[in-house]
């Protein structure tokens, strides 16, 4: 702490804490010898592939995104790419969200054409920029892994799906071969990361075709005309290409001039240059039940098998990816192998507990009257749609919604909003599951909020972390999509009406209190009139003049009842400094205390503390 820090401390923090903060970094596996270093670096960080793509597509500005633990290597990587391509290369600082997500906003600051994302990735599709994923190869002792595998499973006819952390993707083929040929496992199904071929190298390759917003239209029609495209809708002014990449003139009102398509599969890309190929595997799960895609992982089950018949084997250490896989496959047994510790174990034991805990959070969300949407991503595709969808859902239940852009969540930040009863966190699947015990208010995922609020969904034990699966399958991005979701909600409520015993009962259902499982009491929801709701609600408001609180002696402000924040303020004891005009004597200003709260200058021991660090 510097000695200059005195006087009225409005800027209390000199930032030294951030600078001196210890960050755990991966020990750089690059050797000290210069040439070997470059060679390993090129190999691990796939410099050649990256360079090839950049040159092929003609990107001008390249943003490199490293997570904190890989930052030591970033300089060398940037240097190599710059040397080989001659393009502008920028290193982005770690994101304010999860480092597994692509930070498009940061890349936009430098108007980058492409982002190269290094390290662990959640594989969440992005909405604007093309992304090259480089996972960084971590070594796996295949023999050891195979023997651990053998030890965990009794018969070699067991039905197993092989999953892995992306950083181990490069060794999976080797592992599979060992298992199938040497140990004669016959029922192993390998999950692919995004692609069928060339496993682990190219996962998703997003290409900018041209500039100019008019391309969007062209591409859309292009998609339409193309026999392979199954997902573009004629009515939509935007096109969606798989989930990996999409563009929306509505989502992006500034009209970011890109039209992107996905070429998920390289061999097809070669066959069909310039023609966008949609990843048909993804959301059309209804059509192909046995083909599943979760978080960029695709696996195909033989006909007649369901996922519940399988056991999962995961290569990788404990990570959000693993917990994510466990949550979404909570009916399967999950075994893991940690390549660093060379240990294998059964993981699914805690899953049930975790799941029940989430169930409790759903109950909490059901009781909430004021819900905050915390936006935890600016990169994951259709997050705007999701936010809109959630808003519509919340408002249709007469609850109040506030939206927050928060970056990484922490206890102190969230506790600043005491009037919020529950937060819903819109983020990439791997960052969504937050254990909110330490938090003042529960934090739920969009899926959980849906269960809590919409009657059409019920808690069955099935769990979805990827919010895109929540959007209706024929859903399109943009305004249409929002309108659609509104229409669907209305339709849904109509349906509920019809299903009700009689009109009267269903009428009451909305107002009737529900039995809260958190408190064991009946809970009546407060209803807030949303300013976006239609004229019906507005006219209600006009009629209900009693909703306006009468100006009284205590409050100088008349509060509208439908304002949650206003209501909260009303209940609060401290309402800000009182202006007692004419009641206080005029006095000369005197000098008050100086310094900061952790040691005012006047306090004894101030000098000693000056020397202390935090």
């Amino acid at each position, binding site marked *: 702490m510097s000695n200059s820090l005195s006087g*009225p*401390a*409005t800027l*209390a*923090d000199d930032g030294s804490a951030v600078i001196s903060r210890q960050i755990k970094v991966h020990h750089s596996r690059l050797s000290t010898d210069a040439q070997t270093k470059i060679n390993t670096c090129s190999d691990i960080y796939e410099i050649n592939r990256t360079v090839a793509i950049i040159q092929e597509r003609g990107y001008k500005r390249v943003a490199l995104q490293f997570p904190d633990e890989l930052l030591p290597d970033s300089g060398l990587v940037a240097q190599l790419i710059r040397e080989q391509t001659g393009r502008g290369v920028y290193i982005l600082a770690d994101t304010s969200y999860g480092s597994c997500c692509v930070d498009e906003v940061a890349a936009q600051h430098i108007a980058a054409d492409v982002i190269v994302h290094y390290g662990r990735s959640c594989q969440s599709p992005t909405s604007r920029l093309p992304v090259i994923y480089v996972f960084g190869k971590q070594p796996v002792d295949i023999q050891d892994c195979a023997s651990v595998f053998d030890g965990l499973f009794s018969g070699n006819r067991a039905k197993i799906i092989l999953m892995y952390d992306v950083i181990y993707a490069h060794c999976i083929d080797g592992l599979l071969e060992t298992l199938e040929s040497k140990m004669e496992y016959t029922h192993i199904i390998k999950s692919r990361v995004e692609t069928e071929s060339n496993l682990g190298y190219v996962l998703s390759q997003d290409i900018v075709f041209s500039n100019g917003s008019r391309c969007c239209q062209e591409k859309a029609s292009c998609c339409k005309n193309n026999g392979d495209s199954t997902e573009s809708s004629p009515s939509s002014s935007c096109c969606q290409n798989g989930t990996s990449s999409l563009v929306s003139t509505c989502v992006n009102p500034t009209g970011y001039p890109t039209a992107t398509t996905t070429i998920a599969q390289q061999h097809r890309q070669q066959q069909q240059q310039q023609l966008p190929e949609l990843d048909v595997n993804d959301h059309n799960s209804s059509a192909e039940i046995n083909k599943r895609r979760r978080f960029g992982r695709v696996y195909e089950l033989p006909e007649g098998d369901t996922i519940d018949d399988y056991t999962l084997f995961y290569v990788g250490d404990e990570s959000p990816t693993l917990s994510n896989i466990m949550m979404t496959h909570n009916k399967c047994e999950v075994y893991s192998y940690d390549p660093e510790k060379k240990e294998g174990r059964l993981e699914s034991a805690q899953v049930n*507990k975790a*799941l*029940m*805990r*989430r*169930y*409790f959070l759903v*109950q909490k969300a059901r009781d909430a009257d004021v819900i905050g949407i915390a936006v935890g991503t600016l990169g994951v595709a259709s997050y705007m749609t999701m936010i809109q969808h959630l808003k519509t859902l919340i408002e249709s239940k007469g609850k109040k919604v506030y939206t927050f852009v928060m970056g990484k969540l*922490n*206890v*102190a*930040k*969230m*506790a*600043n*909003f*005491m009037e919020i009863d529950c937060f819903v966190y819109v983020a990439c699947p791997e960052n969504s599951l937050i254990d909110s*015990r*330490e938090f*003042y208010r529960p934090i739920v995922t969009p899926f959980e909020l849906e269960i809590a609020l919409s009657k059409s969904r*019920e*808690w*069955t*034990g099935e769990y979805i972390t990827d919010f895109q699966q929540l959007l209706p399958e024929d859903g399109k991005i943009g305004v249409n999509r929002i309108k659609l979701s509104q229409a669907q909600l209305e339709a849904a409520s109509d349906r509920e009406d019809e299903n009700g015993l009689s009109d009267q009962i269903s009428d*009451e259902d909305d*107002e*009737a*209190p529900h*039995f809260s*499982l*958190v*408190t*064991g*009491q*009946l809970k*009546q929801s*407060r209803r807030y009139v949303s300013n976006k709701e239609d004229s019906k609600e507005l006219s209600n408001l006009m009629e209900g003049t009693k909703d306006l609180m009468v100006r009284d002696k205590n409050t100088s402000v008349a509060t509208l*009842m439908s304002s949650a924040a206003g209501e909260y303020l009303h209940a*609060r*004891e*401290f309402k800000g400094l009182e202006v007692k005009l004419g009641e206080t004597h005029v006095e000369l200003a005197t000098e008050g*205390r100086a310094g*900061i*709260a*952790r040691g*005012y200058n006047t306090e004894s*021991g101030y000098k000693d*503390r000056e020397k202390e660090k*935090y």
Partner: protein
Amino acid sequence: MENVTNIRNVSVIGQVNHGKSTLANTLASIAGIPTTPRVEGSCCSTVNDDNEKDYDITIKPVVFPLYFNVNEDDVGDIQQKSNGSAFMINLVDSPGHVDLLPEATAALGITDGALMVVDCIEGICHQTEVVLRQALIQRINPVIVINKIDHAIFLSHHSTEDLYQSFKQTVESVNTIVTIYGDKSLGDLMIHPEKGSVAFASGLQGWAFTIPLFADRYAKKFGVDRQKMAAKLWGDNYFNSATKKWTKQNTTADGKLLERAFNVFILDVIFKISNTVMNNTMDNVLAMLVKLQVELTPDEMELQGKPLLKTILNKYLPVGDVLMRMAVIHLPSPITAQQHRVNVLYEDHLDEECATGIRDCNPNGPLMLYVSRMVPSSDKRHFYALGRVFSGTVRYGLSVRIQGPGYVSKKKNDLFVKSIERVVLLTGAYVQPVESCPAGNIIGLLGIDQFLLQSGTITTSETAHNLKVIKTSVTPIVQITVESKDPSHMPKLVEGLKRLSKSDPSVHCYTSDTGEHIVASCGEIHLEDCLKDLEENCAQVPIQKSNPYIQYRETVTIESPDTVLAKSPNKHNRLFLRAAPLTEEVSRAIEDGTIHFNAEPKARAHVLSEKYEWDNTEARKIWSFGPNNSGPNVLVDMTKGVPYLQEIKDACRTAFQWVTRESVFAQEEMRACRFNVMDVCMFSDAIHRGSGQIIPTCRRAVFASMMISEPRFMEPMYLVDIRIPMDAMEVVYGIITTRRGQVLSEINCPRTTTSICRVQVYVPVAESFGLMSELREATGGQASVQSVFDHWKMMQFGMDHPDTQKLIMDIRERKGLKLEMPKLETFQDRL
């Protein structure tokens, strides 16, 4: 129903096994009310509405309306306004088991009088006393039925004097309670056997008598004034048959012992009847029957022995007449009762129109109706709201305001405006739709069950406040986790839990923060009943349940040796805290509501400083009670002249509620802790001292101060009342010792010849599971056991003892917490 002066709303209260329900059923069967639900599909008599077929109209019987014509002679005895001699008595049965206390209290609220049933041998028990106290607080008049006297007279061979003494003792103990808790403004609430407010009954054999009943008969026979006669038949009055004179001494002038009049003129008569029937020939019996003026039908003449005795006594001393007469004469009509009860029911707003309506029991006033409980219909789809109309008239289709327990006048919380679908009379197991029902009656309502969990106020007046009816709550200390066997049945289970908590006020159903469904109650046995009910009736899906486990409380034992400091996440704000234990007296006062957060701070401070030796200024600066703003932990502001203090008060309160609900060691609730805010240093810039900075800081500070103040667990203790034969004493003591029990008192019941012994012990609830069956087994089924939650007891060992550590880890594992002890360093900061 309209003739309100001739209505008596009476609840039957008393200890379990003292024969309440037998008595109620006997009365009901006399009145011709079937007590078991009839077979489904039989035709409905009064139903013209097609819709009615959707509802199964039988229910578990709760209210028995009895019609009764009083003798012309007795009308004069009624000390209140009445009209004609036809009376209607609404008898509300209530459960006697100690675990069901809330239900019993709820029943009291809708009645004006209480028929208290006491076993003549066991006398007044703890449970009876509690209920009686509640009745008196709610200004409900009691009358006593001393029951099971057949048992005492015919089986246990007591002398008549012994019996008299035990009756007298019961009467006296009731009168003691009445004197303490009874409201003087109600006039004389004491019970007087000679005036007829005590009945002696055998619910089983169906006969009963009061002293005036015998007095009447003797009065006619001897030609004396019946009231004078009645007075002679109780107390120290002796009849010297030689001199034909009444005397107060139990010896004659020549030193001969005299028998008490009560014994001679009443008990001996019954003994004689009994002896004659049991031992003598039919001729003697017939002779006696003539004397008694009892006529038997030819069928009844065929009977022998006990059944014959029963029939004769039944005719000679008919239980229905006696008890109903007692109710009519000694209990108030709604009109009389509500004049007094309005002061309790509508306490603070006695000048408003609703209060006037209640006071006058005015059928044309604003509707004021109190719903005391939900009665499930036997088709398990609907609930009838059982309530009492205090003012106005409730009609089918009337649009009413339904005010839940959380309703505060003129606010919108817990308020629904709905119309009543149906008004029904509950007659035993049937319901009978009616058009309307005026003030003073007990009635069932359909169509409001979804808006109220258990109780609430229904009114038509917009200015109405909630009716204040005292409710007892039980501490749900015993919990069981339930789960549907088939995961897909979960929605049904949830619905079942909802129904269960609706129909039973003693049970608490909720979800723990680990996501498990928990059913909590105050006792193991009641809990088992609940789960059975849940599985068979409410949810109707197979369920899986855990072993029962109990709640603990976390507390501190000493005042913190140091002041602890916690810094806010941005390090700019500091909070200095000290913990201290609250005395048991203060904790209890907070728990039973004597000291309440919503009370006026000055008055509260006064009580604290006068009664509990608090510093008056400190007592005024209590910031918060927790958990739930009412728990036995306090946060006290001890700072002096600190800036920005008001600003952080809200945040500190919030944090305090949170920490007291989930304390540091095992996230159990806190109890009996006081936290003093010694000092705060706040950052001058408001943005850096928002609630986000204060809540976590305050939480850590509380935890840290708790950890340095020798924290302990408190465990719940049962007061177990065991009655066992003398010879089984040793076995019982053995069992109790192994269960860490502590003997409180041991009384040899003097009234019984078989040496039954009554032992009161404290047993930790944790050790009590299976205690009852073990005791029963050890004593060959002779033990009678009643346990009731009594207090929290500090556990013997500190937090670092291995036993406690194991306990903490067990709880933490169950709650899905990290399996390690919390560390002080994580909560405390250094300067």
